[in-house]
């Protein structure tokens, strides 16, 4: 069986839910507030979903619940129809890869070492990465435009370079589902574009299913086909981007009056914030 960077997309047909969450609620402390409050999500095969919401709206926590690194206080997550807690962490990691908001190292690793760590769920306890794993790691570096940085110490890289190496590490995991937490937050305009078109390519050409939390409305508008709008841990609206991304919804979400129109050059929607309004 040949290994590849991204698992091949399964036969097209009726899109099935790869990951679905039903009435998820979560609090960090037993007596703390609900950070996620009754959220239901369905990620179908090949979907590219944006999760939008102000700071503290529960986006990051929702991604943690979906990847199973936190267990919901109530409700449950199904991966391929099976409750997530019935899967071992290793099995989950072969299906779901996560790009965290930031990665902080305590010890020094080179970029390629970080990317090779993405192969962990495919290796046995005493197995060392072989030629296949190294090839996949190199492909992942190339796909994110970071191949020249392979042997550089990770902590010496710029914010944007780090972020792309971390995305490469997630790609090296060869999972069909990618959960990204503000992947473009630390990038300049050029890399924002580059990463967003990378994500779009991975989705369209390789069939990687994605959920992306972001504050960048225009990124969401340009690549995400569906949006989930979250505020105070609840889902405010969900559906196809062109239906959900309305001035009314933007205002309900951020308390900001905004113009939303279709950009003539790119054909996707753009959001221009006008002014802050009272809630």
């Amino acid at each position, binding site marked *: 069986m040949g290994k590849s960077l991204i698992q091949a997309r399964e036969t097209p047909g009726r899109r099935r839910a790869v990951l679905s969450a039903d009435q998820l609620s979560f609090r960090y402390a037993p007596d703390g507030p609900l950070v996620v409050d009754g959220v239901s999500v369905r990620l179908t095969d090949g979907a590219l979903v944006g999760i939008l919401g102000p700071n503290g709206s529960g986006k990051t926590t929702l991604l943690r619940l979906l990847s199973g690194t936190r267990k919901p206080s109530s409700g449950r997550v199904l991966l391929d129809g099976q409750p997530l807690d019935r899967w071992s*962490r290793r099995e989950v*990691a072969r299906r*779901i890869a996560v790009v965290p908001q930031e990665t902080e190292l305590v010890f020094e690793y080179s970029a390629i070492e970080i990317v090779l*760590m993405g192969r*962990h769920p495919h290796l046995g306890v005493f197995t060392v990465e072989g030629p296949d794993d190294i090839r996949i790691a190199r492909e992942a570096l190339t796909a994110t435009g970071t191949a020249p940085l392979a042997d550089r110490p990770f902590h010496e890289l710029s914010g944007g370079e780090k972020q792309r190496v971390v995305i490469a590490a997630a790609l090296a995991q060869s999972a069909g589902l990618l959960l990204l937490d503000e992947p473009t937050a630390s990038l300049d305009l050029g890399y924002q574009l580059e990463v967003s078109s990378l994500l779009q390519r991975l989705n369209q050409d390789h069939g990687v299913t994605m959920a992306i939390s972001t504050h960048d409305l225009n990124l969401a508008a340009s690549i995400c086909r569906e949006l989930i709008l979250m505020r105070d841990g609840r889902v405010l609206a969900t559906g196809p981007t062109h239906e959900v991304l309305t001035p009314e919804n933007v205002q309900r979400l951020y308390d900001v009056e905004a113009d939303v129109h279709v950009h003539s050059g790119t054909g996707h929607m753009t959001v221009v914030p006008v002014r802050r309004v009272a809630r």
Partner: protein
Amino acid sequence: MNIRRRIFTVVSLFALATIAVVLWAPTVGSTSISLPRVFDTTIPWHENVDAQIFFVARLPRVLSGAIVGASLAAAGVVLQAMLRNPLATPFTLGVSAGGALGAMLAIAFGLEVGMMGVSSVPIASFTGSLVATAIVYWLASSRKRGLSTNVLLLAGVTLNSFFSALILFVQYMADFTQSLRALRWLMGDLDVGSYTPIIAALPFVVAAFGVFACLPRTLNLLTLGEDVAAARGVEVVRTQRLAFLSTSLATGAAVSLGGPIGFIGIVVPHLVRLMVGSDHRIVLPAAALFGAAFTVLCDLTARTIVAPLELPVGIITALIGGPFFLWLLVKKS
């Protein structure tokens, strides 16, 4: 890029150097002996004074140094990665303080209930380590479903000070000769006298290293953070439990054998990282080997530098380790 070959080459080099040190160290001392004569099988044992000095008088001490050094250095590597804290040592989590308190009680109350040729002090010390481990583990796992590394650190540090106070109290109550013996034990002493204590400690050390052998790639991931590790397929809580219990076992065994010898568990891991990078598949075995050689050499210095007097080995590790480590820190930044 061949990762397997790199691991094999680097670890082999460390192994060769360590074997050389362990063979050479017993030849050094007040009476000089020659290695060829030691291993010359044509000379009968009772006539071969060199072999007797080598195998009876000096080798047990060298071997106990190697085991203690390897255990403390490896435990340091594992704990630093697991706690994501470069300043962690095998003594951070209170295990060694428990071991020390056990030894102090045995010395102060003159316990002489040896078991199978092992005297009461190491047994009491190991028991103390196990008790401390149990207390810290219970504290760290009672607050939430997993194992809180923060609580682990806080509980360990608190237990350390509490046990240190008790140690002082026991010493204060003890008579003069007992106090002196206790103080001498606390400074570290690898002169175990025979192979029996080594053989007694070995099963625990071997068990701990068996667990260590399964950890390295997981440790790499844990240093990136618990969430990242979990997302990459690491069973975080299970790994933390295993790491804590195995390092406690190794530390407890090492302390019962040689006393709480400082600095090895922090200096050696960092020195090795500077030499070979941060991949724990290399760092962990290399640090264990380097720790063994380092401790044997420090002990060699301790017993020769002011001969015929001997210094406690803990003083040497501190004298060499402290400034060397500071120098490295300054040089690096």
